[in-house]
């Protein structure tokens, strides 16, 4: 996963927005110039595996809550 500031730095040189603050009127002509995004050589099984399997990144959002975590007293 490359969600660090280094990989984002290149984009900060020009005015950039978030996905939620970027109306169509401000879209830049920067998307990849190609006719299709879909590569027909990728198999159905590979697509299913990519979507249905968990990895380290997705499992971060499925951390089980232990009984001990519930007893922490904040105050």
């Amino acid at each position, binding site marked *: 996963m490359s969600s660090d500031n280094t990989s984002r730095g290149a984009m900060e040189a020009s005015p950039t927005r978030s996905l939620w603050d970027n109306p169509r009127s401000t879209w830049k002509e920067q998307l990849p110039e190609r006719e299709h995004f879909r590569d027909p050589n990728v198999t159905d099984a590979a697509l299913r595996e990519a979507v249905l399997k968990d990895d380290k990144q997705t499992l971060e959002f499925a*951390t089980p809550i232990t009984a001990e975590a519930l*007893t922490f007293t*904040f105050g």
Partner: protein
Amino acid sequence: VLGPASLDFRKFDPSKELVGLPNCGEPGFHAGYLTSYLLDLKVTNVLEEQQYFDLDYLSEFAAFYGTSARGYSNVCRRRHFFSGDVLNRALFQAAAGGDATAIDELHKNYLGFVVIRPTPAASFGRTVLRWYEDLNPNLPRVTTPSRPYVCHVAGTTLTVDGLAWQQQDQAVSACATVALWTMLHSSAFDDSHAHAIPKIADIARYAHRSVSMGKKAFPASGLNAFQVCGAIAECGLTPDLSVGSVRVPDLAPGFSPSQFAASCAMLIRSGYPALLGGELISGQQRTLHAVTAVGFRQCAPPASTPGQADLQDGAVTTFYIHDDNIGPNARFELTSEPGAAPGSRYVLLKRAAPAERFTGSHGYDGTIGRYHAFRPTHIVAALPDPLRLPPATLQRHALKVARGLAKGTANTLGFSVSCRLVHLTAFFEAELAKLFESAPARLASVRMALAETVAPMSLYLGVIRIGIGDQPVLDILVDTTDSDRLHPAFCHIVHDKRMVALCEGLQNAGAYDFGAKIDAF
């Protein structure tokens, strides 16, 4: 018996307006922080209601102070703060008489209010202050939970946008009670017909109603995670609890920077403040504490990395936090420390004041360079009852689908991903209007297609926005009323026609059902 008292108009004196008031806990933190904050808002004048019945304090009085042998008063003072150099009795009197120019001057310069409680150990009651001016319009702060607060003084209406904060008094409220109270003020609950903002004494009672653990509600001595969730449930809302996944030697797990940033940002974008439980760290000393994250500064979106799905908000580093040890909207920076596993890191939040906007303002703020680092271990949100899909599950599904889309390009493209929980009406109206602000024909066709070609949708939508860099290419609208399996989406709105075949590829392979297709290119 109370007698009448005149309204008091005076210049703001930073050395004694708030600083002279008694505090509890770290001496000077609250008064100094609030003084510094107001100076940076360019405060000049104060209007004080010398006798003010504050409903929150009255609930505390009824629950605790009214039966104390110390004979506390039930009357507060409320101080309103103004910038500019125009506030005086004559201007206010003109506004009270309906003079439109005077009313406009008051509104333009109104910065918010602080309720001063008559309790010597914790003076600062309900406080709402305006956000200071946003100097980065391209990557603006996200402060969705903020709401308008309307004050009425002598028939004149004053309005400020913010989110309420108050100091814990250790009698009716502890830090977690105050954090919950702030959270339940959120604008996101305005459309919930059953929702009324609970008073702080009510929250303390709710927390002990089903999970008292043999403790009395008053005097307050902190709430555990069970009680925090129980209090939310007693308010008719759904608690959502997440814990960190990064192991830390001898301590509770912490959050990885990207997990923490994306989780908090998603909640705040959706209008739900994030209650953070964790530890204040001072040398070897650790104290459990709770605060509420109410805003954040957006980060640049990820550059497209071939084959990867990156979280739009995974690199957010600036959060604005209501900390009952400090004050409202305190700016913190996300830093990280190495975890137990090689290469892992966990989040540490450090107080990082913004640059001074008024020379000398920082001199009053005792937290700068002194306030402890905070290590979050728990994130709690309060969500409307019909919303069953946990926010973390939506993030997980979004990452999987985006990863599948990247795979479908033979890993030659990467996508940025962001999620929000949005009221159906808000998506139809504000969200689509913003996206298609200069394309009314397309806006109309998308709205009509959503109304006529998609099966009935849930009141709250999970919206997965997928982009390349900062440009949206696909929205997926997800049901929030079912179980947390990867159910078919209601529909997808395609912003780039090259995404059509890619989505069809995943759909035909049985990887994901995107639901009805709406063309928006």
